[in-house]
């Protein structure tokens, strides 16, 4: 069963696929660094007290950190 969610709701260790962005205000830098719709990701670390999250892009094994305030606009499918 597929389940759509925003990236900031995922827990450490969960894997998902990025579906789309729910805000057009997300800077182009997110795309350029490799955060594109269709890629598979895994949550690797979450900094305490609502800090940034660290996400692994599975395809090229790179680690990207971003804030929850932007992660909530990224729609993922578990």
């Amino acid at each position, binding site marked *: 069963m597929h389940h759509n969610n925003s990236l900031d709701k995922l827990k450490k260790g969960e894997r998902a696929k990025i579906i789309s962005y729910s805000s057009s205000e997300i800077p182009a830098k997110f*795309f*350029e660094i490799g955060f594109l719709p269709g890629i598979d990701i895994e949550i690797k670390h979450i900094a305490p007290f609502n800090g940034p999250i660290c996400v692994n892009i599975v395809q090229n094994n790179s680690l990207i*950190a971003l804030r929850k305030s932007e992660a909530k606009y990224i729609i993922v499918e578990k």
Partner: protein
Amino acid sequence: MKSPIIALLGNPNVGKTSLFNKITKLHQKVGNYPGITVEKREGTVHFKDTTYRIIDLPGTYTLFPNSMDEEIVFNALSNKQDANYPDLVVVVSEPMHLKRSIVLYQQARELGLPAIFVLNMIDEAKEKGVSVDIPKLESYLQTRVFQTNARSGQGVNELIQHFSTTTGSYFGGLKIDEQFQPALSEAKQLFPLENEYTTWQFLAQANVAFLSEDTKQKLQSIRAKHNLEIAHLQKSESLIRHHQIDKDLIDIISYNHQTQENKTSAIDKILLHPIWGYVIFFGLLFLIFQAIFAWAEPLMDFIDETFGSLGAYVQTVLPEGPLTGLLTDGIIAGIGGIVIFIPQIAILFLFISLMEETGYMSRVVFLMDRWLRPFGLNGKSVIPLMSGAACSIPAIMSARNIENAKERLITILVTPFMTCSARLPIYIVIIGLVIPDQKLMGFNMQGMTLFGMYILGLLSALGAAWLLGKVIKSKHKTFLIFELPTYKLPDWKNVAVNVWEKSSGFIIDAGKIILAMSIILWVLGSFGPGKFNRAEEIVQQEYPNASAEELENHVKSYQLENSYLGILGTTIEPAIEPLGYDWKIGIGLISSFAAREVFVSTMATVYALGDTEDETTIQGQMRKEINKNTGKPAYNFASGISLLLFYAFAMQCMSTIAIVRKETNSWKWTLIQTGMMTGLAYLAAFIAYQLLK
């Protein structure tokens, strides 16, 4: 013949700087790009009668600029009039992130630049199970592909031999989305001489520095007419390219992933741990400060003694007189006062450079972002704030990789509150004079006071950031996204180059100011109008019964008070009297406006000019100095604390002011910062003195 320019272009963390160091064999210099102080690294290499100029462009993921660093890259590659417009672009990539590098490569080619492609870190490719079909990649990119390992130097010579390569025309290129075509055709009218992709780049950027205001206005009205957002255009290009390259790379690269935990992942489990991560980071900070104060001490003592005996030697060789005083007390003591900080600055930059080289620094950004955000700062502000403990100038420059304009501005404005090494000599001398060398609850009180000054610096930086965050409006929403590179052993050559550049830069800049100030002070203190020249006559009338030696002392101090320097000091005395200072300290304040560290050498010059005895140390001279107005020692507890607070807050550094002006490109913010800091300094010193006296 003009030397051909070779520009190194690449993503961050692909080993571009190591490659640059290998190519130029350290024949390089760090300058500034005209108008702004983004560091420009340039070097040369000779091959077959040709000298090539190699430019190491800042790392970027795209030619659409997100920060000042990235603006440099776009301007150098798209403005044919730019002094750095390259004859050949060398795109540096690494096998793991081939796709992102190809995006950059295509952008450069489509702007009309010849380019060759380098696969660096080729040693890691095998380890990570990546294999690349080089002939296929060459035909796909329509250029030569070179494989290098910048650390060992493998492949570098072959690359240099091909710097004269010319590449033919480039076929294919971005298929711009239909929906933007009408706007693009209108933009093309504005740039009849540019190709389609260059025009597209201009259309998709809000502010291309080298276009005229008129042209920018026209581009803006095209965007407004078609209801276009620049981010939308940039994202569209990014999507199209990534999608296409993904398809094209299928037969060219194969990943044979080991899904088991890799090294980086294992290290991150500890270093990014919600508890241990912070324990380790603060442990490391403690170690750095321990190193700065404990390990540097023997070296600093050695430098201190060397300059002390040099001064003493010069004094024995040269005849006694004001000129010798200038040389020993002004210049030698002043330069010594700067050189003594080399060990501390070098150690601090050694640690910072190691943290950056190994990949740990971006982990610190990850850990600290949440704690700096409430203050209007960004995780990336950690680097400027930490470097600020050595010197604000490189620290402020390192703020340029913060994308958000507001967070960058706040970081620049508050960094000078951090306790830089130029404050140390003042703190040490004054604490030595006014805080008893005793233990309180097992801690040395002088050491605790010094530690307190560091905490004060940090707290005032955070407090000021919080206040500024409330005042400054932001046009863009703040965001943070960055890559955490894999852990690597440091490239020691990069570390050494970095430490050397930072330390020598500090010494040369500060040394020039000290030298100039010493000479100006000496001239102003050795000459004066009217009464200065009749000093002996006047003093003899005033003290008819004094002995010859007493008379000489009186003449000396009378001359100083009536010299140009003395007049300057006595003029500002009413303003600084409520802070507990006399006119001699006033001279110190004025001259140290150029640079804080000048204060101690100025006081040495001032007291030596008005003195005939050879007091051995500056501290000794200061201890016996009496403030005429109060009749108390000039450096007592109240005036000492007042001075400490004054120097903690006041913007006493011309170089910092100059760098802030350049980096913010605004006199308004520079003046607000200087006014805010010096105003706060005056207020704090005033309150402290009035309460304590």
